[in-house]
């Protein structure tokens, strides 16, 4: 290796290090601004809604001096900017305040409700991916055929049917009529005495406890709401898979592969899908993040104690600490998942890897 080449390599490495540092820095700036903006907007919306938060704590019937005392305790008599300042200071030291509805620290509440939502979203996304990708591939390969039309209709129904209705229908058919799945809730009451949650992810907890009866029951409870959420992400994932695949199937390398005499199966699954997988990662990640926000209606129909219900309920009672805490968690999840899909994207795409 000549010296000029070494210099060139070193220079390239330096440039690359700068580029990485710059992108990390710009990323951090974006994250911090996003958070601050998120906090400020949510905070001030929460303060201008015409609902008295004190009412939610002490109720309509409390005497005036109790209301005044609580208002003072909560710092609600201070000017807005001071309240915001105090709040941000708390957040920076890891204190997200106390929920006025549950009187627990907000993070304690979220640690309780978020695993429920996350477990449901994870199982839902697994179902969505497991069925959505093959269906999308099928639709792309048999473009215009009956199979394509069927997948299209499945997707359209998934888009357009209200989840509340579909949830009730699912309960009626699979729970009430056929008895294939368990009913609403996360676990049957008979396990109330034997099952102790550890992580809050019940399926995982059952495995950790080696409690297979509980595992079966938890699975029977989660499968219906998860299938429902899975159906919605399936609808989205299969549509996107189809269009990515169509794009790939028209590329020249596919023609080349066919000319080379590769089997059609190899072409579709080994080459086309592999390339389509790169943008698909983002689609799946976004759909997963969407599910992690918690689906209020699904959680309501299935009596699922998750994040969506928690935030909605808090919002209706002007319980702003809880709403802000929930917003920050969702914001963080979005950022984390974007980051993750970014990393995966770079790993899977040889062009970005080489750069």
């Amino acid at each position, binding site marked *: 290796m000549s010296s000029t080449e070494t210099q060139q390599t070193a220079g390239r490495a330096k440039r690359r290090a700068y580029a990485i540092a710059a992108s990390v820095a710009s990323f951090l700036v974006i994250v911090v601004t996003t958070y601050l903006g998120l906090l400020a907007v949510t905070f001030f919306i929460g303060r201008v809604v015409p609902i008295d938060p004190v009412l*939610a704590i002490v109720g*309509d019937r409390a005497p005036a001096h*109790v209301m005044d005392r609580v208002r003072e305790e909560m710092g609600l008599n201070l000017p807005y900017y001071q309240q915001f300042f105090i709040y941000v200071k708390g957040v920076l030291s890891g204190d997200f305040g106390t929920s006025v509805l549950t009187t627990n620290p907000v993070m304690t509440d979220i640690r309780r409700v978020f695993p429920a939502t996350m477990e449901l979203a994870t199982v839902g996304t697994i179902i969505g991916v497991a069925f959505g990708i093959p269906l999308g591939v099928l639709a792309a390969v048999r473009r215009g055929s009956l199979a394509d039309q069927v997948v299209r209709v499945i997707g359209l129904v998934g888009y357009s049917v209200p989840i509340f209705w579909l949830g009730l229908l699912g309960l009626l058919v699979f*729970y009430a*009529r056929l008895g294939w799945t368990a*009913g*609403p809730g996360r676990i049957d*009451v008979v396990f109330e005495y034997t099952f102790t949650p550890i992580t809050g992810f019940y399926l995982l907890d059952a495995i950790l406890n080696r409690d297979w009866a509980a595992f079966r029951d938890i699975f029977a409870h989660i499968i219906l709401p998860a299938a429902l959420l899975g159906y919605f992400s399936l609808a989205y994932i299969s549509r996107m898979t189809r269009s990515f695949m169509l794009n790939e199937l028209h590329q020249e390398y596919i023609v080349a592969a066919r000319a080379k005499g590769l089997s059609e199966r190899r072409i579709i699954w080994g080459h086309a899908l592999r390339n389509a997988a790169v*943008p698909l990662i983002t689609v799946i990640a976004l759909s997963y993040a969407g599910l992690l*926000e918690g689906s209020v209606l699904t959680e309501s129909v299935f009596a699922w104690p998750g994040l969506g219900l928690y935030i909605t309920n808090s919002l209706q009672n002007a319980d702003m600490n809880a709403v802000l805490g929930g917003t920050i968690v969702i914001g963080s999840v979005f950022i984390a998942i974007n980051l993750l899909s970014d990393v995966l994207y770079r790993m899977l795409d040889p062009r970005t890897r080489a750069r």
Partner: protein
Amino acid sequence: MSTRLGIDQVPDNNTSSHTGEFRDMFMGKMNARFRPLLAGAALAMIAYAGSPALAGTPADTLVQAWAIDDTITLDPAESFELSPAEFLGNAYDMLVRLDIDDTTKVKGGVAESWTVSDDGLTYTFKLKPGLKFASGNPITAEDVAWSFERAVKLDKSPAFILTQFGLTKDNVTEKAKAADENTFVFTVDKSYAPSFVLNCLTATVGAVVDKKLVLEHVAPVTPSDDYKFDNDFGNAWMKTGYAGSGPFKIRDWRANEVLVMERNDNYYGEKAALARVIYRHVKESATQRLMLEAGDIDIARNLEPGDLEAVSKNADLATTSAPKGTVYYISLNQKNPNLSKPEVREAFKYLVDYDAIGSTLIKGVGEIRQTYQAKGVLGALEASPYKFDVAKAKELLEKAGLKDGFSVTFDVRNSQPVTGIAESFQQTAGEAGVKIEIIPGDGKQTLTKYRARNHDMYIGQWGMDYWDPNSNAETFTSNPNNADDGTVKTLAWRNAWDIPQLTEQTKAALLERDSAKRAEMYQKLQQEALDNSPFVMLFQQTEVAGVRGNVKNYKLGPNFDSNFLAPVTKE
């Protein structure tokens, strides 16, 4: 960093709009009125259903589905909501309890007997001998005194039920004290009607708490101007803890999820028949109905009229109901010059289609009632002189100089049955030329506006704070200071109804020691309100539950802390 990273490469789809669509599905764009419709369509499917697979609940356990998200604490000194009242009513005992066979009277709880001194100031309670808390600690008069002390010193929402008798943080240890192990002496500041004092002591804030047990769990507090004590009287622990002596003990509560009660084997009275009661938090009526039909729950507590009807037609299920101490009303703000005319107030009472509302909108969940006291409470007046009569109303409006009607706004929270009632009233009032503009809003939002007296008309409900006529009389027919900065925000104040005379009469009824005379005074107040008040009383709420056929002796009481579960059995 773009959140739609990589998507720019998508060839033939407008991805951002798809992402939007996708997100919208999860945001719940459906409007509230559309939902029951869909639910109904979904439920129509069940017409096909054969007998569903029966899962069944354990034979020694009663499983109830109920929206229990109003529970924020289990401390009797702080709790003031509906669902915890039921938990505390079953898990704690008070000095005296409401007699459900005659709800104008009380009977002994932990107190065996009581006497009132001739001057009406001193109440002496003798406790039943040999009682024990669930923990095994004996129940003594000292526990009763300390329960009063902590409720008054903590001064949470329900504390006024005790402090209205002149108890303060400084004098409570003197005014509520143990004379000996079995004698508790309670001194009040005025010669109140004994029925009033005893009725108030049935409230959950008067629950007897296990002092020895709670003292093991007190947390230190730095005293401040608002709170002068160095400990929290176990308030933090009691939020989820249990220190009572009722037929059930509370084992576990997870907010918005579940509450578990177990039989208390140390209970002095007849022991609970079932080993445990489990409440599951389920909000949707349709979901509750499905679970009830499938046998996964024994009792469904939030059934709406449609589901209720289906349950009552099912041979395996039954329904049970009881009138509760909550009344619904439309109120007219007297700051509005039109609404403040006596003829208009009266005319509006003729513009409600009581029959139609009673037979459709509140069928099964309420009963038409035109007086403000709940049926069953001492001195409740049974009178319903008003009928829907447009001609009569028009005549009255003409007398008020409003022959051509007028326009007025109406704040209505968007939940049933109030939305339906408001729409019905909008239509019937329109027949007399009154143009009503409904302003829909979230419950807490309309309430905030109402409490600030910024409304014209409002539709609301009022639940009794404690089982005594003073509770409703004090809010409907008393208004000590009608000024905008008045601190006692009774319903009369909220509607700017200035009534010095009625306020005095309400006060006087508190001091009438003859129960029969006292009842008469309350009836007079109700009659006055019926004739002149800006409250158009609509109905009294009925609580209904769907019950599986094998559940016996399940009976709802007149208020939530008397929904007693100890006698319930399963076959």
